């Protein structure tokens, strides 16, 4: 009897964990809305937005999408490609800075 109970617990999780994550997501969303409400500016605003965003994304992926309980073979296949996106972001940051530079430059000296 206890054996079957244990087996069921490996394939399903207690409702508490889902309710906790659900509640946390609400609280974090509320906090990120408050960032806009109080009109924080500059580095404080951006770091808070990113912090709440990554926390929410992590909670959804880890518990709602069950990645926390998956085997590493699947988790690593899914997460390593994200480094390519990070590289792309760095490339495009360099690109838009260059575009802004050339625009400012030619708006001032005029294009020939």
């Amino acid at each position: 009897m206890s054996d079957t109970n244990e087996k069921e617990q490996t394939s399903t999780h207690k409702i508490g964990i889902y309710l906790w994550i659900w509640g946390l997501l609400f609280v974090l969303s509320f906090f990120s809305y408050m960032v806009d409400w109080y009109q924080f500016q500059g580095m404080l605003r951006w770091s808070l937005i990113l912090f709440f965003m990554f926390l929410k994304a992590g909670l959804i992926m880890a518990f709602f999408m069950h990645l926390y309980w998956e085997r590493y073979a699947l988790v690593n296949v899914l997460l390593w490609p994200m480094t390519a996106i990070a590289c792309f972001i760095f490339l495009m940051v360099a690109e838009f800075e260059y575009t802004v530079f050339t625009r400012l430059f030619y708006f001032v000296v005029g294009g020939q």
Partner: protein
Amino acid sequence: MSDPKIEGFELKPGFKGMAKDTGSDQTMFKGVHWGKAMMWIFLLSDTFIFSCFLISYMKGRGSTLIDWPNPSEVFGLHVGGVDVPLLLIAIMTFVLITSSGTMALAVKYGYEKNRKMCGWLILATAIGGLTFVGMQAFEWSKLISEGVRPWENPFGAPQFGSFFFMITGFHGTHVTFGVIFLFIYAYKTFKGHYDEGKRGWFTTMKGDYVEIEILGLYWHFVDLVWVFIFAFFYLW
């Protein structure tokens, strides 16, 4: 939620287990239903699509010399004589998170073979998604009536409109398709297709509650994308 005990032997956890799984000359994702692995691969490719949209938005916003419209004012609502910033977007976010929570519970009750509970929760998720799409339609029509077009807008940089319609439109399409499938799966759950192992329309696969988890992965992904859009497009 892969079962650690399959095919009669115990699998090793962690990176050692990963090396064993990958080099086993067999199924790589052990204990993971093929449909679930395929959904994950699809979501990975979808991640790249949305990343490309958001990165092009970053590039466009970063390289324009005209001031970007202030999203807090553009998406604000006038309620009872007070201007509330980002009100509609905040409500949309809460609706989507609510539906994500009901979906997570539907997956849980599905695995416990609780047909009724699972079905009602999927239906609640579908209604949440429908509410979200409805509010997005309202938001679009409000902005269009204010003169926002993909090529111009009265608030600032003209690129704003094209990025807005492209990104939220693509996300809204995902939500819409999700809602359609949620209704179909709610019907199938109530009919007991997953209890009887009834076959689907275009597959020889026997119905199983793992399909609810696969659907749940898609729905949580839609919520996940919204987290990023909310942060980068509406709050930034």
